[in-house]
């Protein structure tokens, strides 16, 4: 791209905020009540993190892989590509993430570890699952415009970053590349639209991660005397 330094985030925005938020609302309406199902999947993953079973690691990786393919097809390919031609090129990357989860991810241990890293990671996952959908309401949009884990890319990517940070296994960093790239792209889109969500999302994610870390620190401090 010639003179690329003269372009700003706004220059890459092909649609208006109103068109974008209506697209999310229409997507939710078309898929309802799938949001409840993906939320249940998220809660099940949360349960497996704190009460892992021998088979639950594969279940977590498999569930995530299915959700990434689902978001790639139902949102990026079928919905978002109608207003953003770049989404058609991103959808295969989401499918690749699903393949990585099903191949690399199935050999990893997906469980919560009471460390600083584990707490931040759990905070990110909790934010994506329970708080991210509420940002729509926080900034004055209707609840039907909520972005839900497993339905739209932003919370799915944030949740995956949190989960991968908790997981242990070779090549786990590979599973971070695409979600982090999407988080950057998603944030730039919101920033380009001048959407308050861009900052709300960042602050809330950071706050939830820091809060989870603080809770763990308090729990660790209160447990130490008993451990002696």
């Amino acid at each position, binding site marked *: 791209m010639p003179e690329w330094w003269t372009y700003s985030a706004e220059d890459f925005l092909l649609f208006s905020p109103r068109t974008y938020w*209506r697209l999310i609302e229409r997507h939710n309406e078309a898929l309802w009540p799938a949001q409840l199902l993906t939320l249940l999947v998220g809660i099940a993953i949360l349960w497996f993190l704190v009460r892992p079973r021998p088979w639950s690691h594969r279940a977590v990786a498999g569930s995530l892989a299915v959700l990434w393919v689902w978001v790639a097809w139902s949102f990026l390919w079928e919905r978002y590509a109608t*207003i953003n031609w770049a989404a058609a090129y991103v959808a295969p990357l989401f499918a690749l993430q699903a393949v990585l989860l099903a191949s690399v991810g199935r050999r990893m241990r997906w469980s919560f570890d009471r460390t600083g890293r584990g707490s931040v990671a759990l905070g990110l996952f909790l934010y994506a699952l329970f708080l991210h959908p509420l940002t729509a309401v926080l900034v004055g949009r209707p609840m039907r415009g909520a972005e839900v884990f497993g339905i739209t890319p932003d919370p799915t990517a944030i949740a995956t970053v949190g989960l991968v940070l908790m997981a242990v296994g070779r090549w786990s960093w590979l599973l971070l590349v695409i979600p982090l790239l999407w988080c950057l792209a998603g944030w730039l889109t919101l920033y380009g639209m001048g959407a308050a969500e861009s900052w709300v999302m960042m602050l809330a994610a950071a706050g939830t991660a820091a809060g989870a870390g603080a809770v763990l620190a308090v729990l660790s401090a209160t447990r130490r005397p008993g451990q002696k």
Partner: protein
Amino acid sequence: MTATRRMFLQGALAATAMAMQPAFAKAQATPQAGAPAMRRIPSTGEAIPTVGLGTWITFNVGDDDELRDECAAVMDAFFRAGGGMIDSSPMYGSAQQVVGYGLRKLGQPKSLFSADKVWISSGSRGPSQIEQSRSLWGVPRFDLLQVHNLLSWEEHLQTLFAMKAAGQLRYVGITTSEGRRHDLLETILASRPLDFVQLTYNIVDREVEDRILPLAADRGIGVIVNRPFQQGVLLRRLAGQPLPAWAGDIGASSWAQVVLKFIISHPAVTVAIPATSQVAHVRENMAAMSGPMPDAAMRKRMADHVRAL
């Protein structure tokens, strides 16, 4: 807008007459009281309304039926106000489809001047992209095709000139925006027989006044002005300021009309293409074509005033 023999003869006569006048005067069409301002396309003398309709962002609404109908309503108001040129591009997401939807809904208005672009890095794939664009618009052929942002411009210009020679296209142009690649733009304007150049120009972005606009006028190339409101940024900035008293002298009742009148009163400018998704705004924009236009002294006053805000 379909070319007829009469239109061709009128254009030829006008072009002959214009050739005997100073460069900037070439583009002026004779104004009539109460009628929307028209400008002649320098290469043919065909007159077109000086305010068109852009589709960047505003018409990219995907398959949202409610928003598609709103866009069709904007197009309806545009044509009812005497509008002609609608400009789009394959780069604008679903905008071409939405224009096509509106044209079908409105019954293919006769005054349409269809302007689209070719935007693909492969020169050999240009014709298939153009055909796809034509199909999305639902028009028999485009009036104007432009090379978008100078992408693969040499190969695409060959294609477009060949289409024009074969009668598949009436006008050929190139585009840029936000002041990018003006050096190359100058080279192309000076060396190729273009009908149109599209660029960014408004009351605060005036770099093109120095070299590009005089060159276009000198070469007999029509000028299409994009982003007249800086994608709304300029109007949001001006919204908090009171409309100056002199706005009444040029028949402007809003900042949007002040800005548009400044642009279309430049002698080298053929048409400005503001984009909007609101019927009220398109009516306001089209009204800028009516009433008195600022002269050189008033244009300087307008620019000085806005710069001082």
